[in-house]
């Protein structure tokens, strides 16, 4: 693996609580530039909450998040985005009354001005193969396209690190393969570091170089796909204790 020594993203002892519920418990992880990392775990393990805490949508109770060496723990999401991190959402959060190209344009303004924003929109729309539907309103493009629109929107912000929250959920096998290709392309051709939350095991095992496993808010395993899938604690978390 070709990684630099300085981590792109680092969380140190990150804890998020809702009242007395500890949703994310003392999570420390590091992601290096150029990696494609998976984050898996059973339902309710705290994956989405961890995402929210990293990107500034939830305030952590304790611990810290460092992005490109900057402590971004108390940054608002738009500032973190300006530094080069964006995300997609598990339940698609399309701007339903806006056209596809307008939605992408919202993200493109992160690094563009009025003069060059169109070029960026065109480029991202072409890359995500959305040309046919670019004028359509987001509410009538269908789930598979909606996932692409959401990815395109985030991509238009020109991120160095992209967090994808179950971007493959609800897609059929062909759509999923196409989506996996897109992710690999993003990672290899565009050199975007990806952290992917996923339920679809085929996808995680197929494309990720390294996997974090979260269970009940705590990090229980880290490693490459083979190591993780043979890990005792991971099997226990997913299937229960051996009788």
């Amino acid at each position, binding site marked *: 693996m070709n990684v630099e020594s300085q981590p792109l993203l680092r969380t140190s002892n990150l804890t998020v609580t809702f009242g007395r519920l500890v949703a994310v418990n003392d999570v420390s992880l590091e992601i290096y530039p150029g990696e494609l990392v998976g984050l898996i775990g059973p339902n309710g393990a705290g994956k989405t909450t961890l995402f929210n805490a990293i990107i500034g949508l939830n305030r952590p109770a304790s611990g810290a998040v460092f992005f490109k060496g900057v402590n971004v723990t108390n940054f608002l999401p738009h500032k973190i985005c300006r530094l080069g991190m964006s995300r997609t959402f598990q339940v698609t959060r399309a*701007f339903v009354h806006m056209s596809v190209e307008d939605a992408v344009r919202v993200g493109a303004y992160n690094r563009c001005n009025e003069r060059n924003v169109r070029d960026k929109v065109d480029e991202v729309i072409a890359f995500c193969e959305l040309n046919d539907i670019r004028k359509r309103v987001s509410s009538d493009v269908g789930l598979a396209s909606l996932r692409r629109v959401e990815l395109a929107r*985030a991509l238009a912000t020109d991120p160095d690190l992209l967090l994808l929250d179950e971007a493959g959920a609800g897609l059929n096998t062909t759509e999923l393969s196409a989506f996996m290709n897109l992710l690999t392309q993003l990672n290899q051709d565009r050199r975007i570091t990806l952290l992917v939350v996923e339920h679809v095991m085929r996808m995680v095992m197929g494309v990720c170089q390294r996997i974090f496993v979260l269970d009940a808010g705590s990090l229980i395993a880290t490693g490459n796909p083979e190591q993780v899938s043979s890990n005792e604690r991971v099997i226990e978390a997913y299937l229960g204790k051996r009788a």
Partner: protein
Amino acid sequence: MYLRRIFSIQNAAMLGVVIIAALVPLQLGNNQYNMVLATTVLLYAVLASAWNIIGGMAGQLDLAVGAFVGVGAFTSGTLLIRWDVTPWIGMPIGGLVAVGVAVLIGFPMFRFKIKEVWYALVSIALVEVMRVLFLMWGEVGGPTERYLPIDTWSWYHLRFNTYMPYYYILLVMLVIVLLVNRWIRDTKLGYSLLALGEDEDAVEVLGVDVRAAKLKALVIYAFIAGAVGGLYANIYGFIHPTVFSTDMSVEVMILGIVGGLGITYGPVTAAIVLVIIREYLRAKLGGELAGLYLMVYAVVLILVALYQPRGLVPLFNKGWERLKSYWGARQRERGIPTSIENK
């Protein structure tokens, strides 16, 4: 390229409407009632078009317009009464004072993510609070009306014995506000507002500073409403705490919603249609039974909400599309190629 943008269909349509609007007083000029009606339509069109920035684009259920208009009216009116300052200066100062109020209320509200119904409550409460404040503030407000100078024709005092000049001033204001709307709509601020009106979290992770964008929208809207307030004092000839009107706030919001949220020409369309319907009903039914016209008006609003929830303008657009496709089919039957089919 640049010429093409100036001579677009949209601009041609706007110019046409403005010319027609400019000719209206020549037709109605002798009938004071009709002139009052036409002026009222324009007044509400300007306010509702300004509301479109915060309410239509940014999706905030704003009911503060009465507060901004009132502050503008008192600022400009007081400057004129006390120090003989022309409203041409008083209006922009009124706008700036309204901006001050907007920032004072908007900054904490957006900081603590007060939105939706809570925003509506805070903003309408602002109108009431301002009204009571000015009722108690004896030096400026108080319970008695304060009259502006009476002139038959004075551009310095902006006082006339006819509504015609106010009509034209409001028409100019409307054109400016519509251009501001279009400018916002085509730039970063507009895209940010439209997106955050749908989903604030989703737009924040795309690098949009939600607080700043909302505050900008509120400030622009407040400035326009405050400046209009200055003119409002001159049109009616006096200032009194009743200019802080929650009725006006609700009316402007209704126009913004019925016209079609976020659609530049929606509020104008709604103002023309609804204000005329309302005044017509008031004239016809007002004598029969007090309040009956409001009931009929409410039924009209409910019908729009039921059958045209996205507003009047989409309805007209649909009619226009139908007309075009019908026209296209006719042309094709005759073997004439058309260029208007694909759009």
